[in-house]
């Protein structure tokens, strides 16, 4: 993750003196009886690249549309740069949006579409021309400048939409699934360019995406949405390593969660008794749960080790049988069946080529993990 190093010192949300650039304050949006956005509060800081993740229909686009001014919040306030946006029409907001449906003007060709925003400003023709050329260069569409949108492929249209929203260099850019239709290579190229643009122009981005990998690499912070409200906000590392709920743990990456009861509850460690296995889980940090409470011990597949021999530890070890192996190139996925029938997902890097010692189907194996790898979730 190259980007996380770039942003490692960029944590304005931890600085109490920093003012948020976008302040979403208890915003709710109802369509009739249906609550699409439910009491969301979010602070987003200047130069952030904030990713919104969430299942289809959870209200991501609705939230962006309220920021752009196309939907009116049923209650709550939206402030951009300290200014209440309630009375400000979309054409006066310092915001540009890339639409999920692209919304390209069908009667204009690519360069007319891209230059549309600049033509609304008082710029000379020459300036507009050079900036359009630059932008088309950036999204690699120079040779299609004279085509109409219906003569383009889906990915090309998406790039036109992206170029059209970027060209005005707004303070706040809202991108609704900007890269979904691009192939892997072009997507990586465009991600890189987005980060470049951000560094050059200091734009604040809010990006909706379905691609976790993309969110992980691009985002300074991620907001995970669930049915209209924000389940968790945090850096990619926080979201991945310290998910706040089973929903978040499940939504980002894959996870094995074991239901259990806390049997020993100390400030510096807890022991959880698995409900359906004869196994104790030792966790090396304290947990804020009531004693004897029902909890879930969540562990990521890559944090489980798999071996033929008994690791010789009393806790944090389970026996099982390999049911399925999926070779993914750089790593393999093992589905291991435990006593009682449930399966655990384990991933292991393929360190050696054609490893003769490799674990194969139907072998009896031991699964074990470090006490720090467990996340204890109460909901």
């Amino acid at each position, binding site marked *: 993750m190259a980007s996380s190093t770039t942003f490692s010192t960029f944590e304005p949300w931890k600085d109490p003196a920093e003012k948020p650039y976008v302040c979403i304050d208890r915003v709710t949006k109802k369509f009739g009886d249906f609550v699409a956005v439910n009491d969301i509060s979010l602070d987003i800081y200047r130069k952030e690249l904030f990713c919104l993740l969430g299942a289809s229909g959870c209200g991501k686009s609705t939230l962006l549309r309220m920021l752009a001014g196309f939907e009116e919040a049923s209650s709550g306030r939206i402030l951009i740069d300290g200014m209440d946006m309630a009375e400000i029409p979309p054409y006066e907001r310092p915001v540009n*949006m890339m639409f999920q449906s692209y919304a390209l003007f069908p009667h204009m060709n690519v360069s007319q579409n891209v230059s549309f925003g600049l033509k609304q*400003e008082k710029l000379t023709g020459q300036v507009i021309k050079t900036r359009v050329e630059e932008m088309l260069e950036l999204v690699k569409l120079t040779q299609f400048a004279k085509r109409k949108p219906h003569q383009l492929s889906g990915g090309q249209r998406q790039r036109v939409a992206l170029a059209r*929203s970027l060209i005005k260099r707004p303070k706040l850019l809202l991108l609704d699934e900007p890269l979904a239709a691009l192939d892997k290579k072009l997507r990586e190229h465009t991600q890189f360019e987005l980060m470049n643009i951000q560094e050059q122009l200091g734009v604040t981005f809010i990006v909706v995406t379905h691609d976790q990998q993309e969110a992980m690499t691009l985002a300074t912070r991620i907001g995970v949405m669930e049915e209209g409200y924000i389940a968790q906000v945090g850096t990619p590392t926080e979201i991945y390593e310290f998910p706040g709920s089973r929903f978040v743990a499940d939504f980002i990456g894959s996870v094995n969660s074991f239901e259990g009861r806390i049997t020993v509850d100390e400030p510096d460690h807890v022991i959880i008794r698995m409900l359906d296995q004869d196994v104790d889980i030792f966790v090396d940090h304290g947990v804020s749960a009531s004693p004897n409470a029902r909890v879930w011990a969540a562990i990521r597949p890559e944090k489980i080790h798999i071996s033929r021999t008994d690791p010789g530890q009393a806790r944090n070890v389970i026996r099982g049988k390999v049911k399925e192996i999926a070779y993914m190139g750089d790593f393999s996925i093992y589905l291991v069946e435990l006593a009682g029938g449930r399966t655990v997902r384990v991933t292991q890097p393929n360190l050696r080529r054609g490893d003769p010692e490799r674990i194969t189907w139907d072998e009896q194996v031991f699964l074990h993990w470090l006490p720090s790898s467990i996340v204890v979730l109460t909901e």
Partner: protein
Amino acid sequence: MTTRGIPAVTGRIIRQAESLLKRAGLEGLAIWLARRVRRVRHLGRNLVIAIPYAWLLAFFLIPFVIVLKIALSDAAIAQPPYTPLWEWVGDQYLNIKVNLGNFMFLVEDNLYWKSYLNSVKVALVSTVACLLIGYPMAYGIARAKSAYRTILLMLVILPFWTSFLIRVYAWIGILKNNGLLNNFLMWLGVIDSPIVMLQTDFAVYLGIVYSYLPFMILPLYANLEKLDETLLEAAYDLGCKPARTFLTVTLPLSVPGIIAGSMLVFIPAVGEFVIPALLGAPDTLMIGRILWDEFFGNRDWPVASAVAIALLLLLVIPIVILQHNQARNSEANS
């Protein structure tokens, strides 16, 4: 069953029949059957295309040729009132007499020129007026809540439930000197003596605009209703104010609707006879009236036919423009 389903089913039956025949050792018969069926299917497709052509031939081309024939003959006091175009003389000479004089007459007598130009002027002005009135109405209906939309559309179509003629007569009652409008204005005290409105150009324009407004609104509505609202949002988002958005996005995208509506108003308005006859002054020069006068007043069928042919040519040009435009549009939207 869909329309594609029927050939599919017949195809299946035929294929089964073929394989049955083949199995029975009747190879030749099977091939013959297949060929027959293919030919019949071909015939069916041609038949479907032929029906509209036959219609056009019977009800457009043949009458047109008859009218053209009359236009090329001489007027005569006879029954029918024109000379025949060809005659056998002494059983061996075919005597063809083509009279181009009627068309020359149209060019020479400036009455016809003037009435043509006046018809075009009246039609153009009415079309523009219909557009200016109809566009906001169509836009309003297209942007209304879907529950109201049907009602509003019904209101646009409602006048068609009364005869066109009766509606034009009704305007006489409204516009005449002691009619509804004048009485109302005098009651209000705006005017002391009635304004002459009936038998003026104003009344003709009013009548045409009133009668043809739905033909403008309906195609415009059909077009504006399809307009993707996110395009307007995209324009606003890029800093375009509503008025400018209308000019740069909505208006260009509604050009096909504007053209269709304008044609539907312009073409019948050029040849309009009833409205100028009932609402216009007796000396209103419109080609539809001239045509009527030539036929029934002067009983000069050849000249009247020549007028009709010229009128037709005058109308064909905008239709060709319309078709050209539609072809270009469907190409652009494909």
